């Protein structure tokens, strides 16, 4: 049996609830219902799951999905060794065995045939067949599956199948409102709340430009980066440009507008 403890979240992650999502998640976990969290990048989805794992004191296994991921990357595969072959469990299998929360981040990135392997784990069966090994795993009573996805990517090619979607309960995340977001920045980085308010103001200016040359606005995560830099003594405007503007755009006009927003906000 794998060492369960290594997957535990050791210290309390900072998470500022935006509504009743903590209570709702606990309810879902108590019923062992699979959960889907949606929302734009950097708005706190992963942090929320981490926080809940800590709160429920359960191990958390996170898998970042990518285009080349195959079902065996999740479930496990035979490896060659000196005497022949050896089976190695994949992260999903480990989670099902030890009763962890398995968090599949950015699930739409994975190929559709991959996402199908989670189906038997997400309905009443709660089993995982390992067809190559010829084993059927009964999921541990504590096991829960969580997936995240960013509807911003939504294109015809990258969407979840209905049969997958309809196996989950859902949480919709968005960037918090201005007051709450500044509070989050202040608590996360220890920066003065007024400065955080201005950072949020710039972030919102960028979010207004979404669809006019920006694919995604400035996320809370980037705001935290900027606040961290400022807290560490980097000059305010330089920190904003470095953490909030340069990463998100190569478009000269948008860069210019956001630089001006920084100047306007900080004077």
């Amino acid at each position, binding site marked *: 049996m794998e060492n369960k403890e290594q997957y535990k979240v050791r210290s309390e992650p900072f998470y500022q609830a935006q509504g009743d999502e903590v209570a709702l998640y606990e309810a879902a976990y108590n019923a062992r219902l699979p959960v889907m969290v949606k929302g734009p990048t950097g708005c706190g989805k992963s942090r929320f799951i981490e926080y809940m794992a800590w709160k429920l004191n359960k191990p958390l296994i996170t898998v970042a999905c990518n285009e080349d991921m*195959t079902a065996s990357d999740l479930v496990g595969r035979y490896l060659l060794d000196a005497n022949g072959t050896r089976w190695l469990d994949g992260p999903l299998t480990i989670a099902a065995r030890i009763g962890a929360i398995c968090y599949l981040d950015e699930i739409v990135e994975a190929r559709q045939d991959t996402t199908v392997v989670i189906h038997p784990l997400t309905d009443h069966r709660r089993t995982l067949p390992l067809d190559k090994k010829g084993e059927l795993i009964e999921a541990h009573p504590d096991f829960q599956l969580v997936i995240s996805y960013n509807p911003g990517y939504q294109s015809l090619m990258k969407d979840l199948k209905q049969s997958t979607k309809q196996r989950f309960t859902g949480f919709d995340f968005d960037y918090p409102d201005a007051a709450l977001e500044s509070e989050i920045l202040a608590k996360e980085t220890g920066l003065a709340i007024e400065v955080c308010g201005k950072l949020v103001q710039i972030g919102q*200016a960028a979010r207004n430009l979404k669809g006019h040359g920006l694919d995604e606005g400035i996320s809370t995560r980037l705001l935290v980066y900027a606040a961290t830099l400022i807290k560490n003594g980097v000059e305010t405007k330089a920190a904003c440009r470095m953490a909030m503007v340069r990463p998100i755009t190569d478009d000269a006009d948008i860069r*210019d507008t956001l630089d001006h927003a920084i*100047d306007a*906000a900080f004077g």
Partner: protein
Amino acid sequence: MAVEATARSEELEGYWQRLGCRFALVDAVFDECMKEALTSLSPAGLDAYLDNARFIGKMGRGAEPLLVYLEDAPRVAVLVGEQSLTDLREFAYYMSTHTNFKAIVPFLQTCAAAAECLPTQELFKQYVELVRDMMDRTTGSVHGHHTTFASPGLPEMLKQVPSILSLVPLGGFKNWIDYGIRYYNDHPERQIEYFSLQSADSKAVLQRERHGTLFIDNERKLDLYLRGLWQDPEQLVPYSQVFDSLTKPTPYYDDDGIRVPDVFDDLGDIRGIERYRAALAHMAAHRRWSTKMVVDNWSPFQRLGVEVFEDCRVDFLTMQRFPGLRRLFLALHPIPDERLLDNPEASAIRVKLAMVSRAMLDPDYEYKNTDIREFANRFHEAMAAGESSSPEMSRLGLSFIARMRRQSDLSPNVYFQDTEVDYRDDNRHLWIYLEKGDDEDTLFEHLDIKKKEEEELHALPPRHYDEWDYSNQSYRPDWASVYEMKHPGGSPAKVDALLEKHAGLAKRMKRILDLIKPQDKVRIRYQEEGSELDLDIAIRSLIDYKAGSQPDPRINMSHRTDGRNIAVSLVLDLSESLNEKVQGSGQTILELSQEAVSLLAWSVEHLGDPFAISGFHSNTRHDVRYYHIKGYNEPWDDSVKGRIGAMQAAWSTRMGAAMRHAGHYLKAQPADKKLLLILTDGEPADIDTRDPQSLIQDARQAVKELDRDGIYTYCINLDPKADEYVSDIFGRQYTIVDKIEQLPVKLPELFIALTK
């Protein structure tokens, strides 16, 4: 006269005698002029002034040149040196002896304004040389006439000099003149239009030479600014200040959008783009925080007062929200001189308002006037409580006007100096009139009416395209007007009959088409899990395995479907020459083209590529017709067949404009590959262009532009003599179809070969 002469002092009488002039008109103003000259000129300059004036008076061109000289020359001499007194006279004489005496007066009238824009001797000399050069080049003789004709454009141009020089540097002025001479030297009426700044291209060329920050270069930035910082997606509409220098329109907004000037010059340290942003911030703030007020009962002064307070309120809120704008607003806000208030002769109402505005926005600025300070404090008290409101500001504004009112406010002599706040709009959005007043601003209405008239002439408003001028290696801005319209329809039966006739060919083509139709299978290798074993990789993996190293598990392969992704636009030349009969057959080129196009359209439909058909011809650059026959997503149906059947040929071939227009649609297609096919029977030509190379070179330039946009251009030429020019235009991307009767077979074949 006698009375005046006796009234003249002895000194002045001496000067009058030196002038040796008898014009009564001159006599009337002489004293005034001399007074100014005496104060501003050195003794040597005064001598030169009188001598040159005497000369001009005796030139025999009436009193007017002398009058203008007397009035304006001292001013010029002060600005650019006294040498100019002689220069002006010499040039006036030069004009007079070179048949351009009508231009003397405008030249002298505007030389002071020119000297103000070009305030060094060097620059002013260059300016005079420029005018001389322009005059020499446009003064000409007509073959068969033994007289020399005066330059038609010169007097007009001289009248425009003040406004032009305030906009463009001398180099730009020279380019503008060169352009006018190059294109209109042999067309007097057009030349006058150009040099009097009436024609569209004249304005466009001038615009190209301007200094400052142009709206058009920054439209997207400003749009993003408004959206990003103000969540205001309102449309921005530029207006021009050049041709409206008297009224000096300020920015404003109404239901149709936010109007901003087409250009902002840098103002001291403030860049043009900052001025745009300040103006937009102010208007956006109004849009967010201001409410309308019923103002029928308010006097103009009261409105003036209320709007200053309301402007300050929204500026104040803006600066609270964006502290960085404080620097910008204050830099653009004038600092009025408090001492102006003491003058009982002049109306200082604007000064007072500007002062209170400054005091409200800039707490560091101290005024001695207690009333101003009191109102600034009352304003700050109101703002301390929150956003305040428009009605509250109107109460403050009205009591300010009541308190500050003085008899002198009504004086016609109003101080404007340092009272205009650059970034503020005219606040028309603040007022509601229950009754229709006579001071409604209708500044732009005449433009709208004009536009409507134009629209009625043609179905779609024209699009203007630049044209390449090879002799000058530059674009003529907005030169060709392309009118697009749907081609009139007809009966589809004709095209059906044509297709029937080529049934045999169609059958052969269908086989070829089926072959090149997308096969939809592309192999993807290196898959861990796939539909088939990829033997090469599998064997390599096995070798690795046997050798004891880690084998590559990706030994499978799978397939994915793939399609063609080509958008095609076929542009047909519908010029008059298509009506000619082809030798050896009874058909005209037009009929053969119809057959060919029908077959091509049928085959492309079979392949499923997005395919558009259009036709064009032209009747001078002002009327290039572009006919829509089939759109990219329109199915190959009876209405399209009807349009092909009804095709008519007329007029000439202005190919470049049509190609640019077709290209602008093709550019918007999402396909990977874009193909523009041009079917023509001759070289580009039009009746308003005499140089045969001109339109050929323009078409070549159009091909280059399209190439830059990723559009592949290909020409199918039916002109047996095409070798002489077609490769100049299309490089190697062309085919000449010698036997025109084979066109219906050739065209689809060509298409298939090109896209295979």
